[in-house]
């Protein structure tokens, strides 16, 4: 799997390169600014890009904008966005084209190496991965509304993990229950929230996120 990394701090750029290489991913490019990122994405066409939001030259949201520009040219180009802080505003922008292949995580999450590499692979495969903090904020904001109050505590847990983009198997492992139990919870949640049942994991995640962001 071919990866392009965009991170301006050498320490973190090298760390990411080492980490992804150790897990058998091929880092074909490692850049440290917005314009180089856009060039690398459009010429190298990697299977996935791992991008820091804040990059030179402006040190604002350069990385986010370069990723958006690249996805405008190459629809669905998988991008995993990393940041020191997560914002619903940016999550909303990243999800707006509903094309999938999007991840948005705090840089902290990289320290859970196995989970992080899984997330990168998931995004490369066209999946959607959201940081628990984004999901937590969304849930907190909508928690007063009745449809969410009809969910049981366990169902809320499953909903949060589902919104983060985890597969049924991952949810089952996390909650130490069977896959079948997870499927049952998910069906119950989708019914209570009036969302269409779907076998396509990614479409399901997007529907849940869209519902929560409503």
């Amino acid at each position, binding site marked *: 799997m071919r990866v392009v990394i965009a991170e301006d701090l050498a320490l973190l750029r090298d760390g990411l390169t080492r980490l992804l290489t150790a897990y058998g991913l091929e880092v074909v490019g490692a850049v440290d600014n917005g314009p180089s990122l856009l060039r690398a994405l459009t010429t190298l066409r990697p299977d996935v890009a791992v991008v820091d*939001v*804040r990059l030179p030259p402006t*040190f*604002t*949201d350069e990385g986010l904008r370069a990723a958006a520009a690249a996805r405008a040219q190459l629809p669905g180009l998988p991008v995993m966005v990393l*940041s*020191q*802080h997560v*914002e*619903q*505003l940016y999550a909303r922008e990243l999800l707006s084209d509903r094309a999938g292949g999007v991840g948005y995580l*705090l*840089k*902290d999450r990289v*320290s*859970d190496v196995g989970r992080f590499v899984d997330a990168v692979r998931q995004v490369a495969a066209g999946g959607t991965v959201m940081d628990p903090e984004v999901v937590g*904020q969304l849930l*907190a*904001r909508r928690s*007063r509304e009745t449809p969410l109050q009809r969910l049981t505590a366990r169902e809320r847990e499953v909903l949060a993990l589902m919104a983060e983009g985890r597969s049924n198997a991952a949810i089952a492992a996390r909650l130490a229950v069977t896959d079948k139990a997870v499927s049952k919870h998910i069906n119950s949640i989708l019914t209570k929230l009036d969302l269409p049942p779907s076998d396509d994991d990614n479409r399901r995640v997007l529907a849940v996120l869209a519902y929560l962001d409503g």
Partner: protein
Amino acid sequence: MVAQNGRVITGWVRNGTVAAARGLVFAVLSQTVTIVLVVASLLAVVFVALGIGVLAVPVVAAGARALADLHRRLARDWSGVDIPRPYRSPSEPVGGVRGAWRRCWWVLTDPATWRDLLWLLVEIVLGLVLGLLPFCLIVKGLEGIFVAPFLWLLVDGYGYGAVWPIENPAEALLSTLPGASMLLLGLAVGPWILRLHALIARSLLGPTRAAELHRRVDHLAASRTGVVDARAAELRRIERDLHDGPQARLAALGMNIGLAEELLARDPDEARRLLAEARTVSGEALAELRSLVRGIHPPVLAERGLGPAVQALALALPLPVTLDLDLPGRLEPPLESAAYFCVAEALANVVKHSGAGQAEVRLAHRSGRLTMTVTDDGVGGADPDAGSGLHGVRRRLVAFDGTLAVVSPAGGPTTVTMELPCE
């Protein structure tokens, strides 16, 4: 067309008449209250030497200032001339003899007191002359038109204007022409004389350039002290937070990793447990740093500016917030930051105290002013003087010459309006 002309003429006559009547008010004031105050002022100053004046000076000065205030108000209401009050703000009240001395001293050392006295003296003459002029012109004009043509028949040796005495009907009719001219002149000059009077009053009752600078310096000194204090308190808070949070956690992290290194060969299981703990601690340190950074300068504000930062803020609140943003371009960074934290504190207040179901934020940057309005449908009763978060908002605004206005009747709704000049 005719009707319109008629209206214009009626309006003109009314304005002239009203102005003449207002002039009379000034004339009466100048010959009564003004004279009394001049005499009282002079006596009070003289009696300071005898002691009793110490008590009299502040009282008389208060009277003079009340009369001056009345003239300021009339100048604004009748002539549209704005005259700011130039007086220095009093020191804290102290009782007893010392307090009396201090009040007297405060009055006597204020240059505005002596300018008031000069104005009182001028006003005795000016009020009379300017006040009576239009009125006299109108009365004399009316005499020329309506009285002179007939009165010469009854009173022997009566005359009008240049014709003195009037001796035949032709001469009598001659008086109507100067009469009409005087009437028109009186009506025409009335409003202008009123305005002239107000302008002269402003030159004496308004603040001098020096007084204006003096007030400005006082204001800046006070607001600078506030800013410096707030800055220092904020730095102390950040230092404490860094010391107790991330710094402590990084130290623990180093210890954990060092210990794990030691144990790697002897007790790999324990080493793994320590490393897992180290990872948790590093996550906590990062989370603490993140919340600290938000308090110093929110990342979205740095990355996108005020509008998106407020949008991101609204998204993170537990109640729906409607936004109405009219912000062409970005502001200067210090202003942007001040504006953001004002809105953030106002919204935090809504969440903490109002019990509101929804809120609205309007930001408009027009003609060199940023107007920020935060409205909620909560319980009301917000008071910026009661030490709530709004007090902090005011402090932030004052540093930039901004203003805060709160309308919050008991039962709500609450509207907080904040303005920042941003030339």
